[in-house]
């Protein structure tokens, strides 16, 4: 027997010895399914209250928050970039043409290595779902969001969130993520931060130091 097989069977044998008689897998699955989940699964807020809550949470993290109608996305992105003093952004494949504000350069960063990403002015992306109660954005590796490094290495992240992507509670977000649960997924709640020194929250240790969120209503 190879070393690794031996190690595997040793650990499993030790667990089984401690646990005693194993149950059949469908009995285990049934026991799991019967676990009561009486915690809050769905939110109760109206769309307006929901978006206000989401905005409040983001502001508390020190993120910038903007709102626009679907028709104004491009123009609003332009004004956010002007305000941030940026001349353009990198982005994953699949960001719609209409988002690319006139007068700014947008480059497809698919396949960029970390050095190249480090040199960009920032990243523009969409998201899969957002959670109001915790002010979180959830990004997955799909068109418009791309690989996990994209939202990590650049110092600035601008994320576009549609109102119907915002849910109130964490369980609602997981319900929506259920079918794509094996994709690389990142939950982002505010800019990178640490409280390791005297419990003072310091923004941006290793991840992006600046986060803007554009909510499309």
């Amino acid at each position, binding site marked *: 027997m190879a*070393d690794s097989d031996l*190690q595997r069977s*040793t*650990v*499993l044998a*030790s*667990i*089984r*010895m*401690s*646990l005693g008689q*194993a*149950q059949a897998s469908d009995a*285990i699955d049934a*026991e799991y399914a019967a676990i*009561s*989940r*009486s*915690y*809050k699964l769905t939110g109760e807020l109206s769309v307006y209250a929901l978006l206000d809550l989401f905005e409040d949470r983001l502001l508390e993290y020190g993120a910038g928050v903007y709102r626009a109608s679907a028709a104004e996305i491009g123009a609003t992105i332009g004004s956010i970039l002007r305000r941030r003093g940026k001349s353009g952004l990198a982005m994953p494949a699949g960001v719609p043409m209409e988002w690319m504000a006139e007068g700014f350069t947008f480059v497809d960063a*698919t*396949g960029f290595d*970390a*050095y190249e990403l*480090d040199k960009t002015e920032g990243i523009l992306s969409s998201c899969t779902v957002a*959670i109001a109660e*915790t*002010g*979180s954005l959830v990004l997955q*590796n799909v068109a418009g969001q791309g*690989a*996990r*490094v994209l939202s*990590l290495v650049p110092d600035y992240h601008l994320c576009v969130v549609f109102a119907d992507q915002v849910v109130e509670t*964490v369980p609602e977000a*997981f319900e929506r993520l259920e079918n794509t*649960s*094996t*994709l*690389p*997924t*990142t*939950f*982002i*709640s505010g800019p*990178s*931060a*640490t*409280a*390791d*020194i*005297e*419990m*003072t929250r*310091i923004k*941006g*240790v*290793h*991840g*992006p130091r600046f986060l803007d969120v554009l909510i499309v209503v």
Partner: protein
Amino acid sequence: MSEVPVQHTQWNALDFPDAAKVLLEDSQTRKNVQHATNVIQGKRNKVVAELPDWEDLREAGARVKAHTLRHLDYYLTKFEENCVRAGGHVHWASDAAEANRIILGLLRRHEAREVIKIKTMTSEEIGLNATLEANGIRPIETDLAELIIQLGKDRPSHFVVPALHKNRQQVREIFQREMHLPELGDKPEDLATAARTYLREKYLRIKVAISGGNFLLADTGGMCIVESEGNGRMCLTLPDVLISIVGIEKVIPSFRDLDIFLQTLPRSATGERMNPYNSTWTGVHPGDGPKEFHVVLLDNGRSPILADKEARQTLQCIRCAACLNVCPVYHQTGGHAYESVYAGPIGAILTPQLHSMEEGRSLPYASSLCGACYEVCPVKINIPEVLIHLRGKVVREDQATLAGKFSLWNIGMQAAAFLFKDAGRLSMAEHMGLVGQKALVSKNGFIEWMPGMLSGWTQTRDLKAMPAQSFRDWWAKEKAPHAKSADDGGVR
């Protein structure tokens, strides 16, 4: 596999009471610990109070964890199957030496001279850094607090904020010296920027990373890591190879269960509604993250704990450290007094069990049994209950040895048991005590010094002298003249 030198972390040099005595004299550390734990606890209480369903979340979390532990082999093999299907590699390690050997073997295969690391208690538990260094590989900690500890040649004292015993002036001194930055300021921002610059070059260059893991997801074969700074994400996504060392108790049945733990963990750990970053991934994903992914499943004394039904709940722990922050004992001593990788109330029950009750035997006594740890625990581990259970174990084991049988403690306790079992004996002892204490009672009616073994008690406390008349005598005379004599059990 060829033999490799493996270094072990040997922390159990002193017993808790001795170690605590040393730390109680370090007023700077105590001040830093108290400040930090008060701040986190305040934040924690506020964000927990926001959730009306907090108790339901605790209950569901405890049930999911308890269920997984009851069927741990089932869920681990399920995880393995799904992880391998997604392109991951799964290794099993019975103990620290085996885990070190596996990791070292992988690093050698990739000819790694340096590795970047995400904060992981499991790596601390198996003494990984020492092993790597002894084999010519340089581990670089990327979590700000761990970096402070590593550069300061210190030990973590808390498992969420490992450097909370250091204030910023102390951090600055370490960074000035180790990063060669004589001009460095002492604002937290200055220190964070110094760490950012120091580490960014390493993230971009080093090709192998080592991490722990917060959750293994059996239904997808995926993993979840929870962090704040983004250093975790750097290590998880930039290198070509990722090796994660994870305790076998970290598996949960399904991705969906994260909807409980991603609510309870951040609120309990750092007092935030959500920590800045959570990453989940499954095996390898072309064009995103490492090309090679290894999980080392670590037993190292965990599986025998499953057999002890009363103590099994210890393994439900999600390492939020909320129990440390509320513990009056931890407050006073900080983490180093526990002489153990896992400090605080959870350390007091986990450490002795991980070492089959051979080490850390004084830890179950390092508690006031006030119950605060149980109240805050997001997975409802009844720590006081387990502490008492383990104390019982320590005593029974001691009594079984020859030295234990004849130890003063045991003889004293047996004598006490003998006396307390019989009312006549007890009242006789009370009368003898009255005579015996005469020489010890000072003018104020207190006993300030006791002889022999009992002097330990009076070193830090005064003892009220026994009253001239015992309650039993008083009762017999005043209130129960018609009752039978106390000696036949008429009075209890």
